[in-house]
């Protein structure tokens, strides 16, 4: 599929989601089950992207203490947990990744 078309379909869909209740009716409560499901979606999607980024390399599982992305990722998770700060988390993770890759290239 053409990338423009993909983008436009995704954009129109997103817009319709935002427009839905505003244009249709005033008061309308979502069923509680749906509300709960919606609450968990962002966590699920983002985690489903994070973990493969940390644990896989070239579509293969790379479970090793020598996996720089895994180490840097764990450090970033700890930073995010302690500080709740987006910029600090990204900085800590990137610096760790660079330091670990550099150390490994020196040691080998």
């Amino acid at each position: 599929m053409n990338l423009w078309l993909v983008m436009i379909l995704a954009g129109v869909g997103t817009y319709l989601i935002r427009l839905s209740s505003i244009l249709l009716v005033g008061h309308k409560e979502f069923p509680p089950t749906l509300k709960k499901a919606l609450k968990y979606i962002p966590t699920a999607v983002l985690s489903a992207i994070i973990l493969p980024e940390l644990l896989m390399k070239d579509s293969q599982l790379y479970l090793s203490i020598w996996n720089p992305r895994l180490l840097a990722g764990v450090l970033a998770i700890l930073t995010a947990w302690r500080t709740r700060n987006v910029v600090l988390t990204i900085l800590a993770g990137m610096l760790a990744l660079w330091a670990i890759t550099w150390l490994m290239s020196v040691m080998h």
Partner: protein
Amino acid sequence: MRFSRFLQGVKAELPLLVGVAPFGMIYGVLAIQAGIIKIQAQAMSSIIFAGSSQIVFTQLVLESAPGLVIVVAVLVVNLRHALYSAWMAPYLQRLSRGWKLLLAYLLTDEAYVVSAIHYEKLGYAELHPTFEQEFQHYYLFGAGLALWTTWQVSTAFGLFLGTVIPSSWSLDFTLALTFIALVVPNLRDRAGVITAVSAGVVAVLATNLPYKVGLVIAVVIGVVAGMLMEKGSAEK
């Protein structure tokens, strides 16, 4: 009156923009590294105008996922906006259709958050009868437009950075890091942790399934696991 209400919304939005600007830049960098051409990457920030889903988009393009999977993934990530729409609907009920169409376009996480706080503080019963006369919709308009402008400019800046910075810097890793920064502080209870871990593990196990459907399966399993956990702990 109109303008001061507009400015009020802009001002309330400012602190959030500090976090949005780097996010927009990261999106720009990732889009370049995924091989998306600049004009498309910039246009996406207006057409989709939803940060996390745009980053998911670049990731799936990088993995050459089929178009349909990309569309579904973006919509799943953005489904939560339906809640914002439902929350805002009663307030915006009597506005003209033009205003509704415009404000719905600007209804992002960050614009919703500050406006909802403002509207809730005044109270629905108090606010509703004079919503239009008091130009309360200009508050959401101001917050939304401030965010929109920041998003476009930071995207452009990221697109520039993406062409300057060599790929040996592994800046693609900022994708995982940004998402970590968004997810981890929100893992407040056991149900949230179960959602994150189960979705993540299933995604790893299902990586090599065709058409990247592993992502969708992982999300469904993660959401169901979280809901079951919540139900289980509520019954205890």
